[in-house]
């Protein structure tokens, strides 16, 4: 579901499987624990292994963006699938969050 690696000030979180409302709360809790680490200045969501996502993913990422922005940090998403990318576009997510290839 969620694995991560921290290199210097960048925390890369890899989400796999399905991201919907039923799992969003536990992923959020886990993420918020991880980004408590003051060394984390940049949060990258690696979505390459994500098989399904609905609009629950938007809330999750925007929520983490707000937390990171509050302390001058940034958020990026990497490798969103075509459908996930469309959902992010619809929500204007890329105005807040950088899209990596």
């Amino acid at each position, binding site marked *: 579901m969620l694995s991560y690696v921290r290199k210097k000030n960048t925390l890369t979180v890899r989400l796999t499987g*399905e991201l*919907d*409302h*039923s799992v*969003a709360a536990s992923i*959020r809790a886990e993420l918020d624990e991880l980004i408590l680490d003051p060394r984390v200045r940049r949060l990258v969501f690696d979505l390459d292994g994500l098989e*399904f996502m*609905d*609009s*629950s993913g*938007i*809330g*999750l990422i*925007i*929520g983490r963006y707000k937390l990171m922005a509050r302390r001058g940090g940034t958020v990026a998403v990497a490798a969103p699938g075509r*459908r996930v990318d*469309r*959902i992010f576009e*619809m*929500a204007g997510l890329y105005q807040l969050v950088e899209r990596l290839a």
Partner: protein
Amino acid sequence: MSIINEMRLDFPALAENEAFARMVVSGFLLPLNPTLEQLADVKTAVSEAVTNAIIHGYGSGKGTVRLHARYTDDGVVTIDVIDRGRGIADIAHARQPFFTTSEGEERSGMGFTVMESFMDAVDVRSAVGEGTTVRLTKRIDARAEPLARRA
């Protein structure tokens, strides 16, 4: 148009049934020979509608969600997601992008927008105190020969 296939499924308004509802609908549509893209579109829309029923219809409390799906011989799929929950007072407002009544839960308010974008049509009927029916419609263009002609 005559109905080729039809199913009804009632399940309790539990978050773990969101994935179940997506799987059921995707299995039900397989005889139409949909593309992976089409299946994913429908699964995403169903996920949004079922999540709305659970979170908003029943306020994450007790209740039953009904899924009623059918397809006709012209390849049009109709899926009703029905709850008998609190209902929506202002449907047009609720359908606006970014409208949400659950600020604290980090809901994006993009559910209806996502449904509209992945389906051909989304119709909402609702009455306060009686519940909500979301009707999702999409034509699944047959890739192979029409169903009726298959053995």
